[in-house]
């Protein structure tokens, strides 16, 4: 080490700092990448096996009773529906658990906030990383679906973006829950009472139109329903104008949850 008596003074005020510094986001995400390097095998395994099991179970089970839903083959229906499930699980759960563990148990966030990283940058980077991963892993059910007879379509590449956008919203939702939860056990309430109905009443395994009118209306407020519609239209080559509406809902959900997560966690990370 040597003394740098003048260097920092010369550096000072060289450039106004932005609210979201790319270098800070990259720094926080570089940690996520290192950790991912240790767990990618397990993550990838489950992201492939889970949709396979869904397709087998529903395909062999319901598939014998139901050959088509509307004009879609059941495999087309389920494979695209499971994308939303995969995105939900790979974003909401890391949002909740990673945030809580790193903040409360490992105190990683405390360490990072002593470095030139603000709460907004820290949380945004964590959410960005989770949603990037969700976007990529959201493609896994389609790959499995193709093995089960789904026709490949260039529109399926759009699914990564849809998964990213949906994942951003649900990762932020997870962070928000972690911020307000008193203990990690409280996540059980959210998992059973919020996430489970969300992924069932979204047109994943059966159409929302089969449900009573009241539930159908509620489904309109479920971001996952809009994700499922978009994914289906994109990967089956049937994109239409109304899909802009679905995208708008997902974008609004993402922005709302992102701001709420930052607001709530800031209150708790900074005394």
């Amino acid at each position: 080490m040597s003394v740098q008596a003048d260097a920092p003074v010369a550096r000072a005020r060289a450039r106004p700092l932005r609210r979201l510094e790319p270098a800070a986001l990259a720094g926080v995400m570089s940690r996520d990448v290192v950790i991912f390097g240790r767990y990618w095998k397990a993550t990838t395994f489950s992201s492939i096996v889970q949709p396979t099991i869904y397709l087998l179970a529903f395909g062999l089970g319901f598939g014998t009773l139901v050959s088509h839903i509307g004009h879609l083959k059941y495999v087309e229906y389920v494979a695209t529906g499971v994308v939303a499930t995969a995105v939900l699980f790979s974003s909401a759960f890391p949002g909740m658990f990673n945030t809580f563990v790193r903040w409360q148990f490992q105190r990683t966030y405390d360490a990072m906030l002593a470095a030139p990283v603000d709460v907004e940058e820290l949380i945004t980077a964590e959410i960005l990383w989770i949603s990037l991963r969700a976007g990529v892993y959201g493609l896994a059910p389609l790959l499995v679906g193709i093995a089960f007879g789904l026709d490949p379509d260039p529109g399926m590449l759009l699914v990564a973006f849809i998964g990213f956008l949906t994942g951003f919203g649900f990762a932020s939702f997870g962070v928000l829950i972690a911020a307000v939860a008193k203990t990690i056990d409280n996540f059980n309430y959210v998992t059973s009472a919020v996430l489970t109905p969300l992924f069932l009443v979204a047109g994943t395994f059966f159409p929302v139109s089969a449900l009573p009118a009241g539930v159908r209306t509620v489904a309109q407020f479920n971001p996952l329903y809009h994700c499922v519609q978009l994914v289906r239209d994109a990967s089956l080559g049937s994109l239409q104008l109304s899909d802009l509406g679905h995208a708008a809902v997902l974008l609004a959900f993402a922005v709302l949850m992102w701001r709420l997560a930052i607001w709530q966690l800031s209150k708790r990370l900074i005394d």
Partner: protein
Amino acid sequence: MAQQLDPGTHERAQPPAISLRNVVKRFGSIVAVDGLNLAVPAGVCFGLLGPNGAGKSTTMRMLTAQALADSGEIEVLGYELPRESKRARMEMGVVPQLDNLDVELTCRQILTVFARLYRVPGGERADAVRRALELANLGPRADTIVRELSGGMRRRLLVARGLIHRPRLVLLDEPTVGLDPQVRQELWTLIDGLRSEGVTVLMSTHYIEEAERLADVVAVMSQGKIVAEGAPAELVRAYAGEQVLEIYGPPEQLAAASDTAARHGWQSRRSGPALAIMRAETLDGDAPEGVRRPANLEDAFVALTGEEIE
């Protein structure tokens, strides 16, 4: 108001590295920091000495804007907090009291992540990591996962992490708390090395010996305020005199000696199994039998805060 002694060991011309003016921080009805005034001159090792609960850690957290003051002004390295805190954090390093290392990562991985967070340019990162590993004597453990390191190694890694970007100011919050004496010595050497290289060090501690050995200037903090400030030797002279008379004996004898001291207006305190009377050099012939020893910072500390220390 804090009683100010001239430390006389540092330049007055340079602006202070840290300055707090009338800073107040409350947690509900508890006032953790109560009108704190503090100026840490650039280039010194400054010891913030106080019992547990004096407000030291809260003060440290306010310097990184991880706690926001309810009122008062804080400046760090010339940056106004909390507005310019991110800029200030770029130029300072922090070693926290609680171990918040990523247990799943290796030493090298942790240091690399923090080199990025501290904006060490890509081309210099590997060198910065190597230098930090050497500094902390962790070269052979570079690729060991933190979970497998000993407590002393983890503490050294925490220090290395805070120094990865060659900061010109380092905050050390109770740097050696809970460490065995040998590891403590190692860290003291490291901290002393920083000071000799011109890095400003602000160290909070409740170990008298740590402050006495390392700090050029000590500020004694009690109940959220600075109660005295100066070079350790000056504090001792001002608040405990030159000599202390220690009287040993059964409790009744100590109680009697304590009464005698009170009657004469001598300042005294219980010190383990003994009664210690301050400023023994000024005692007249009435002084009880006892052992005279030089006054130390602990005597001054107890005289100032009224609190015994472990």
